[in-house]
C-alpha cells in the first residue's frame, strides 16, 4: 500500500491547492476554539511513548496522566501508564491502569500478561492464574469463531508461556514484572506498541477506505491499531463510533462519539454523527442540540451541519406526513 505521510489526520494539511492553514478536525473557520481542552492527548501520548523508550519514566507518567485526564479509558494509554508505574518501582499502582485497559479491550493480551506478572510479584498467584485462564479463553474464543489471526495467536502463546514460567518459578526467583516486558521485544509481538507514528496514520487511512466500502468490522480493527500507535484522537474515535453505529452497536458508538467530544467538543464529525445516532434512536431534541452545536462551530457553514440538517428535515417531514 502507498505510504501516507500526513502531518495530521486531516487531509486538508497536505492539499497544496488550499494554502491557508489546515482547519484541523475542529472548526473549519480557522478561528480558535475556547472550549477545547488544553491537553492534546495524541501529542502527549506520543511524548509519553518517547519518554518510555528513553527510560524517563517520571516524564512518561506525567504525559500519560495528561492523556488520561481527557481520555481516561484509552486502553493503550492505560497500559503505558502501568508500564511507567512499574518501571518507577510502583507495581501496585499499575494494577488499576491494567484493569482499565483490560476492561476496555478484553483481548488486550499484553495488558493481561502484565497484570498477571505484577500479581505474581505482589504475591497473588491465584489472581495471576485467573489472567492466564482469561488469556487462554481468548485464544479459544477466536479459534471457535474461526477468525484467529496468526500474529494474535503468537502473542497469546508467548504471553501464556511467560506467565506460566513466572508461576512455576521457585519463590523468590520469579521474573519481576518489568523484566519480561513485551515492549522490549516488539518484533516478537507483531503488535503496534512503539510502532512509528506514520504507520498509525496509514492504518487510519486504510480504515477510512474500508468504511467507504462498508467493511466496518475490518475498519474497526484498523482503527484500534491506529489508536494504539497515535493515542486518543477525535478523528479515530469518531470513526470508531461511526463504524460501531453502522454495525448496530449503538451504545458503544455513543461512547466513542462522547470520547471524541471529550477531547474536542468542537469536532464537527463527532457532533454530526452523534446527531445522526440520536435521530436513529428517536431522540429528536438531542439531535437538534448537535445541530445547534454545529451552527455555532461552523461560522462559515460546513457539510457536517448541512448533512445533519437535511436528515433532521427529512425525519420531521416523514413524521409530519404520517
Amino acid at each position, binding site marked *: 500500500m*502507498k505510504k501516507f505521510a500526513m502531518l495530521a489526520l486531516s487531509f*486538508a494539511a*497536505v492539499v497544496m491547492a488550499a*494554502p*491557508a492553514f489546515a482547519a484541523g478536525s475542529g472548526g473549519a473557520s480557522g478561528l480558535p476554539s475556547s472550549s477545547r481542552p488544553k491537553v492534546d492527548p495524541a501529542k502527549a501520548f506520543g511524548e509519553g511513548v518517547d519518554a518510555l523508550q528513553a527510560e524517563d519514566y517520571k516524564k512518561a507518567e506525567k504525559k500519560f496522566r495528561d492523556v488520561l485526564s481527557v481520555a481516561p479509558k484509552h486502553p493503550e494509554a492505560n497500559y503505558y501508564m502501568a508500564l511507567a508505574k512499574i518501571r518507577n518501582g510502583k507495581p501496585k499502582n499499575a494494577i488499576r491502569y491494567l484493569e482499565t485497559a483490560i476492561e476496555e479491550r478484553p483481548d488486550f493480551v499484553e495488558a493481561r500478561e502484565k497484570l498477571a506478572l505484577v500479581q505474581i510479584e505482589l504475591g497473588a498467584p491465584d489472581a495471576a492464574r485467573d489472567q492466564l485462564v482469561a488469556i487462554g479463553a481468548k485464544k479459544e474464543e477466536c479459534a471457535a469463531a474461526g477468525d484467529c489471526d496468526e500474529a494474535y495467536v503468537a502473542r497469546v502463546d508467548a504471553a501464556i508461556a511467560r506467565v506460566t514460567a513466572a508461576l512455576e518459578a521457585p519463590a523468590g526467583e520469579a521474573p519481576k514484572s518489568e523484566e519480561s516486558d513485551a515492549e522490549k521485544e516488539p518484533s516478537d509481538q507483531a503488535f503496534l506498541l512503539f510502532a512509528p507514528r506514520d504507520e498509525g496514520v496509514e492504518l487510519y487511512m486504510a480504515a477510512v477506505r474500508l468504511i467507504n466500502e462498508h467493511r466496518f468490522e475490518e475498519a474497526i480493527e484498523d482503527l484500534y491499531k491506529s489508536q494504539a500507535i497515535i493515542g486518543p484522537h477525535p478523528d479515530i474515535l469518531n470513526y470508531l463510533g461511526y463504524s460501531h453505529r453502522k454495525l448496530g452497536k449503538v451504545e458503544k458508538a455513543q461512547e466513542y462519539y462522547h470520547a471524541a467530544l471529550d477531547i474536542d467538543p468542537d469536532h464537527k464529525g463527532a457532533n454530526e454523527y452523534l446527531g445522526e445516532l440520536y435521530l436513529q434512536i428517536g431522540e429528536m431534541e438531542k439531535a437538534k442540540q448537535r445541530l445547534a452545536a454545529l451552527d455555532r462551530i461552523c*461560522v462559515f*457553514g460546513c457539510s457536517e451541519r448541512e448533512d445533519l440538517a437535511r436528515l433532521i428535515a427529512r425525519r420531521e417531514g416523514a413524521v409530519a406526513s404520517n
Partner: protein
Amino acid sequence: MGGQAARSGLSCAACHIDGRANPNFYLDGLSGAPGTADVTTSIFSEVREDKKFNPIPIPTLVGAGEKSSFGANASASSLHDFIGAAIVEEFQAEPPPAAVLDGIIAYVGALDAAACPSGPAAQTPRRAMNDIVRALEAAEAAYARDDLATAEFLLATSRNMLGLIAERYPYEKGARLRSDLAVLSRDISAVRKKPEEAEARLESVKRDAIRLEKRLHKARRISLYDPRALAEFLERRKED
C-alpha cells in the same frame, strides 16, 4: 462535494484552478506525481474503488465543451453525465439542484482556450469578494423565481467562500476582519431563515460585502493573498 472530500475542505477548485489543472495538487495515497489523482479510490468514494492505484494527470477543463467523450478511468458520454457522476459518485455529495448543475456545465462548457487568459488569475481579496457578491446576486435571482434549493445552495457557497477568505488573514492583525467576515456569514445564513425577506436582506448583505471588500483589500499585505506573506507562512509551518 460530500463525504470525506468535503470534510477535508476539498472542492472542484482543489484540482481545477480556474477550470484548469493544478500541477501542485498532491495528496499522499491519492496522487502519484504532483498534479495527478486516483479517481477510482474508496478514500473519497463508496462506489468507485477499482483495487488499483492508478492516478492520472488532472486535466484542464478548458476545451471540455468541444469533446465527445469525458474522463479516463471513469468515463461518460456527456459533460452533464460526467460532472454529475463526479459530484455524486466520486465525491459522495447529494445531487445538486438542477440549476446549479446546469450552471457548472455551462461554465465548464464555456471555458475556451482562445478567450481565456493563459494561466489562472491571481487570487486577491477583491476577486474573492466579487465572486461572493455574484453568488449572492445569483441567489437573489433564484429566490425571485422561487427556486429555494438553488438559492440556499448559493448562500451556503457564499459562506464557505467567506471562510476561505478568513483563513487568509490568520494573524492577530486580521482578527477584526475575520470577525467581520464571520458576522457577514451569519447575516447570509439569516437570509435562508426568512426567504420572504430575502430580497431586502440580500441587498443589505451585498452592501456590507462591498464595504468589507475595501477593508480586506487595504489589509491585503498582512494576508496570505500577498505572495511574500504566503511564502513566509508556509515556511514557518514547515518548520513547525
